[in-house]
């Protein structure tokens, strides 16, 4: 595989992670448990959508076919989206959202910490800006994991279930394919296998502090890297793409 193609795939994955998770988080707007939380969640959503935009723009540039951020965000078919499965899962209750966010933030934080040193200058620059925001996301989702885990009996039970339910989607974050091999070899991105043990350590430590059990490892879902999604993805796209599909070729 050519480096250009691998880089394009790689950027789409990063961009889709941020776009789809940001999209899901924005559903909390107006419905959060307290006004302060609405504002905080939207801040995270806005950060992620910002990352997605930079990554899509660069992906379009790398591809060289003149596709814009919106072409990439709105006009691909489901199989062409490469976001991790965990990003497209329903928001559920607030504990589900926090657990999803914490597991993803922890991954994203470790990944972007490495991307800051990418041999690709644009990737490094995007990461340098994003890492500051991701560090804050992680801090917030960690603080909330502690509060829900070590809060009331009810909250403890609820978020423990959230982590248990989400666990089988965490493996998908670390699956590597041909594009990854090219990216690692070129020094553009890290070997995900080196991140996995640190991710486990960190998750374990926070869960322990939150008086939560580390879920048991078992069967892990996968497929996002080849565009095989959950049933939720199609519904996300039917909303996300509605305007672009209903009124093709318009300026908005």
């Amino acid at each position, binding site marked *: 595989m050519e480096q250009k193609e691998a880089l394009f795939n790689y950027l789409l994955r990063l961009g889709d992670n941020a776009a789809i998770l940001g999209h899901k988080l924005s559903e909390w707007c107006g419905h959060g448990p307290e006004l*302060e939380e609405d*504002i*905080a969640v939207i801040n995270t959503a806005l950060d992620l959508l910002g990352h997605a935009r930079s990554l899509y723009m660069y992906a379009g540039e790398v591809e060289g076919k003149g596709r814009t951020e919106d072409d990439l965000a709105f006009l691909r078919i489901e199989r062409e989206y490469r976001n991790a499965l965990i990003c497209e899962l329903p928001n559920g209750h607030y504990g589900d959202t926090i657990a999803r966010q914490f597991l993803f933030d922890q991954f994203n934080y470790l990944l972007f910490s490495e991307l800051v040193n990418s041999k690709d200058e644009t990737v490094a620059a995007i990461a340098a800006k994003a890492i500051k925001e991701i560090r804050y996301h992680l*801090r*917030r989702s960690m603080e909330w994991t502690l509060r829900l885990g070590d809060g009331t009996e009810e909250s403890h039970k609820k978020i423990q279930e959230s982590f248990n339910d989400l666990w089988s989607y965490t493996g998908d974050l670390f699956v590597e394919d041909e594009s990854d091999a090219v990216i690692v070899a070129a020094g553009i991105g890290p070997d995900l296998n080196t991140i996995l043990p640190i991710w486990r350590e960190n998750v374990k430590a926070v869960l322990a502090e939150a008086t939560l059990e580390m879920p048991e490892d078992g069967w892990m879902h996968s497929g996002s890297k080849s565009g095989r999604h959950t049933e939720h993805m199609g519904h996300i796209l039917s909303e996300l793409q509605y305007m672009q599909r209903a009124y093709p070729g318009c300026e908005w």
Partner: protein
Amino acid sequence: MERKDWPLWEVFVRSKAGLSHKHAGSLHAPDAEMAISNARDVYTRRNEGVSIWVVESKHIHSTLETDTESMFDPNADKIYRHPTFYDIPDEVGHM
């Protein structure tokens, strides 16, 4: 009955290095960490600050309107505390 909603906090923001913290507004939060975090999200979204103080509103004590006369009026006529009270000839230059 025990309060279940979060207490009120006052937020003070330093807008840039070298300036003092200034009252920005209030918010609700369960504890100090979250109050700081919420203050960051609520009151510094447009680059308004470089540092934040929070204090639970109940810990703020203030003067009362009924005290205003005895607290503040007496200082209105102590003009000798101001530089313009003193006559220095112009020839001396700026002082």
